Structures are given as C-alpha cells and as structure tokens.
C-alpha cells in the first residue's frame, strides 16, 4: 500500500474482505490494472472506491465480485480465498448484489421480471419469487411501475429497479459501479439514498465506485486508487487533500 494511505479501517466488525498483494495485468503484462493492492473491509462498512479512469477501480470491483481472477495475490471473503470458491456462481447469487452504471436491465423483461432474474438460482417457487420481487419494487418506490418494461422507465427508475434486483437474494455485500453516473442530480440523490438505506437498515456492506467526491464523502471510508495502487485509505472528508485526477 502507498505510504499516503492511512491503512485499513479498524471497525471492530468481522473482516469481510481481505486483499493481499493483489495484482492484475492484461495483454501479457503490458497493462497493469492492479499493482499489488492490500486492504481489509469489515462487515457492514460503506466504502467508496475513488480514482481516475484506468486507475483499477473496476478491476478491483470485478475481483470483489468473483468475476475475474487476479494475476497474483490473494483476496479472501470471510477468510476463504475468493478464487478457490467451489461454486463462484453461488457466491455471486447469494453473497453479492451488483448495481451497474448502465443499469443493465434486460429489455424484454418487465421491472418485476428483472428483479426475479437473480432468484432463479435460489430455487424458490414462482409465486414466492414474484411476491418478493414486487415487495422489493415497493421498497424502492416503484409499486406503480411493476409491469413496465425498462424502455418505459426513466433513468432513475431503471436504477431503482436495478437496486431492487441487486438485493433480490438478500446479499451481504452490495457492489455498485458508478451507480449515479448516468443520472440527473435529483435521481442520483434518490438512488444514493436508497443504497445507503439498504446499507444502514439491512446491515449490508456497501462498496461503491464513483468519480463524484460528494458521493464518496457519504461513505464512512474511501479507498483512492491511482495507477493500480491504493494511494489513500481513510476518512472521505480528507479526500480533498488527495486529488482524484
């Protein structure tokens, strides 16, 4: 870790993620996305990952979501290596909820059907899936939009559907990749309020990638990345001392 960082935050809660010497390169080592990253994230934390484009934020998020493997180093989830999981799909289905910048709702499915999609691996009866999906859409204020297709929803509404989908299996961790990047200010605030309320009320660990300093400051902790290194780890209020770009 860079000397500018303040080290992993000690929250007193159990460690959820623990990365050690995490490296990732592409194109036979020509592109170094992560250059030896170390951190710990405790259960229930709200961590913002900030940094300029190409700094390795998304690559790190991919590692946390078990979507990709590192070139070297370790990343543990609850003490178990994420890259030796017997069933990575089960980890993604039950432990992780993803919120994407471009929402990534499936266009041929209604809002409620989109929310049901992660539940297929949960082997719940159809009626139970639908009921739960409708309840989740109500919890994000979309009870009037349950049967609308994504094309008929505003950007903010689409992201709220995506948030409902991300918590469909009541995961322990929410991974949000620039969740407000494609939204107007009002919608962005609404979406951020929703994410923080899930974090607060359901004790979900929230890891959010953002360019927006005002959003990062809502987190309890910020990890700032530059060129594949974590250059700051600490109180987001002190981020102004460490310019993102």
């Amino acid at each position, binding site marked *: 870790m860079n000397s500018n960082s303040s080290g992993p935050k000690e929250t007193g809660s159990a460690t959820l993620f623990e990365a050690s010497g995490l490296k990732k390169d592409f194109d036979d080592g020509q592109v170094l996305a992560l250059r030896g990253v170390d951190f710990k994230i405790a259960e229930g934390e709200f961590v913002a990952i900030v940094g300029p484009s190409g700094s390795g934020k998304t690559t790190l998020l991919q590692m946390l*979501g078990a*979507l990709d493997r590192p070139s070297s180093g370790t990343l543990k989830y609850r003490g178990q290596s994420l890259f030796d999981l017997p069933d990575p*799909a089960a980890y993604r*289905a039950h432990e992780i909820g*993803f919120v994407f910048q471009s929402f990534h709702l499936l266009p041929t499915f209604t809002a409620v*059907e989109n929310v049901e999609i992660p539940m*297929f*691996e949960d082997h719940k009866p159809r009626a139970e899936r639908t009921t739960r999906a409708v309840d989740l859409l109500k919890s994000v204020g979309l009870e009037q939009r349950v049967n609308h297709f994504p094309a008929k929803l505003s950007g903010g509404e689409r992201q709220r559907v995506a948030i409902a989908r991300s918590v469909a*299996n009541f995961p322990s961790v929410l991974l949000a990749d620039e969740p407000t990047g494609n939204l107007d200010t009002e919608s962005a605030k609404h979406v951020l309020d929703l994410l923080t309320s899930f974090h607060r009320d359901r004790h979900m660990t929230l890891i959010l990638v953002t360019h927006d300093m005002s959003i990062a400051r809502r987190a309890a902790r910020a990890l700032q990345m530059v060129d594949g290194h974590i250059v700051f780890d600490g109180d987001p209020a002190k981020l102004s001392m460490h310019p993102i770009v």
Partner: protein
Amino acid sequence: MTFFDVVTRSLTRRRLRTSLTLLGIAVGIAAVVALIGLSRGLVSSWTSGMKSRGTDIVVANMRGSLTPKPFPASTRDRIARLPGVSATCMILVDLMSIENAELMIVSGREWGCFAWDNLKLVSGRMPNDQNERAVIFGTAAADILKKKVGDTVQIETEELAVVGIVNGGAFVENGSLVLSLPLLQQIMGNQNQVSAIDVRVTPGTDIQRLCAEIDRLVPEAHADPAGEHIAGSEGYRVINAMSWGTSLLAVVVGVLGVTNTMLMSVFERKQEIAILLALGWRQSRIVRMILWESALLGFFGGIIGVLLGIIGVQLLKHAPALRGMLEPDLGANLMLEAVAIAVFVGVLSGLYPAWRSSRVAPSLALHG
C-alpha cells in the same frame, strides 16, 4: 416468470430473424414429410390395394423396378398345388402412358379370379367375357382421363370400349384400368406371361413359411406377404434412399440456419449473458437457455414444416405424374418423426453456440 419465459422472450426479441430461421427449418422438415410421406404412401397404397383384393401373398419378380418383370404363366400351376394355397390369380400389370395421362396403372387379371371380386360397379357393367375388347376404369382413373361408360380408350395400338366404372375399395385399385389378362397380354405382346400371381391362403396358414416354400419352388420369382413386395423391391429402396437423401440435405441447411441464428444471438447477447452470470446464474443454466432456445426453434419449425409438408403433399398428389397412383402416407408416426428430427436439429444446432455462451467472461458485465 419461469425459466421457460426467459427462453421464449429471447426468441421473440428478434421476430424477423426468428421467423426466417423457423422458415428455414420448416422447409427442411416439409421436404422430409412430403418425400417420405410419398415414399411410404407407395407401399401403403399398394398394400391396401392388395388387401382390398383379398391377396395374402404376391409372387412377383420386382428386380430393380417398381413394376414387376413378366415371367411364365405356367408358374401358377406349381404354386396352386402347394398346401395352404386356397386360390391364385394371375395378373399382368404395367405403368403405361394412356392418352394425355403420363402414367396409369393398367392391370390385366385372369378372368373370373378373386381379383375381380372387390370391384364394385359404380356405373355400366363388367366385361361380358375375357375376349371382349372392353376395359373398366377405377373411379379415380375415370376422373383423370375424363372417361365415362360408352367412351373408348386407346391402350397402345388398341382402342377399347369403356364399359364400366368401378370402386375397387383402395386408392391404387381406383386409379387403375382393369381388363382381362389375355387382352392385356395380347396388347403388350406378352402372351403366356404374367407379372404377378396373387395368392390367397387357407386360414391358419403360416404365410412366411409358405413364402419360403414358394421361393424354393419358383426360383424365377419371389414370394412376399402382400405389400412387402413393394417395400422389399430395389426400386422402392432407391426411391426411399433418394427421399431421405434429399430430406437430409434440406435438414442440413436447417441445421446451418439455426446454428447461424443462435451464434449471432450469443454474440449479440454477450454482455447480457455476462450480466446473468454476475447476477448469479450458473454457466450450466446459460447453456440450457441457449439449448432450449434452439430446441424450441426446432420444435416450432418442425410443426410449421409438418403443415407445409402436408400442403406440399396435397399439391404433389395431384401432379400429373402421381395422380391416382398413390395415396401419401401422412400418418401420426411420420409427423412425430418429423417433429423429433426438427427438435434434434435444433438441439444439435445449439450445441456450438451454447458452448460459446459458456465461454463468455462474467467480467464483461462491468464493461459499458
């Protein structure tokens, strides 16, 4: 929403492409239904014709053609003496061009034998004797040649009187022109030659054993249970092989069509597949989704193909070359076989695209 909804929704997203793919499979399956239906119809039509005449065994020399080759009429005497044979009927049959019809079945039958008994007069009368220069028409043959009682018909160089129209109780019988054996032998220049001997057996006779006995006794011809003489002929086997060969080509085109569609679909949906993986779907579920999509394309393509095949067969049935000669066999078995082939085609076509889908990196979900 069920997993099946997910599968069907993917197919309905690109309606034009799905429709064209369905059409591609349907044409292949229609070819299967039409060609195999006609080919099997040849056997079933002749079998029902034999049954309507009350024939149990046919002694004929089919060789490589669909019409039997003539052999000496004296053969009948050896067969008639065999235990288990209750009656015999000598027949000379050929496919001939009659007036404006390209191919008609002309059947000369031994006067007074059982092969006349099933012919029920619809109009006119039967020939008075075997020497009368008269012919009777099956109802379909009369319709094809537009003949009625009192007309004449030219067979080779002979002009014969149409004295009766009959219902023979079977498609082939109704499509035939029937006259006495000596008259046809004279017209064809095949005196003392017959092309088949129809055999009736006494009740309780082991037909297969009797056929084997006839084969030993009559090396110049071959005995088969009624109907099987067509199915076992080399001519039929060639037709059947050609039908399956042509159908196979059409099916291969269908396979390529579905593979192309599914592959395009997988390439287009790479990120969507990655998102599903990121949301916790297993690769096996993605593979199943693709295979189900292609199987459904096959299934519905098969259903459409069967319908197109039935329409095609109806059109072919009335083609001048086939009219009145055979009734296509479009039984439930053929329909089920055709749909099963279509589903197999679908699944086969989906294997490579499904494998490609399993190679999509879930990390793609975070791109774009």
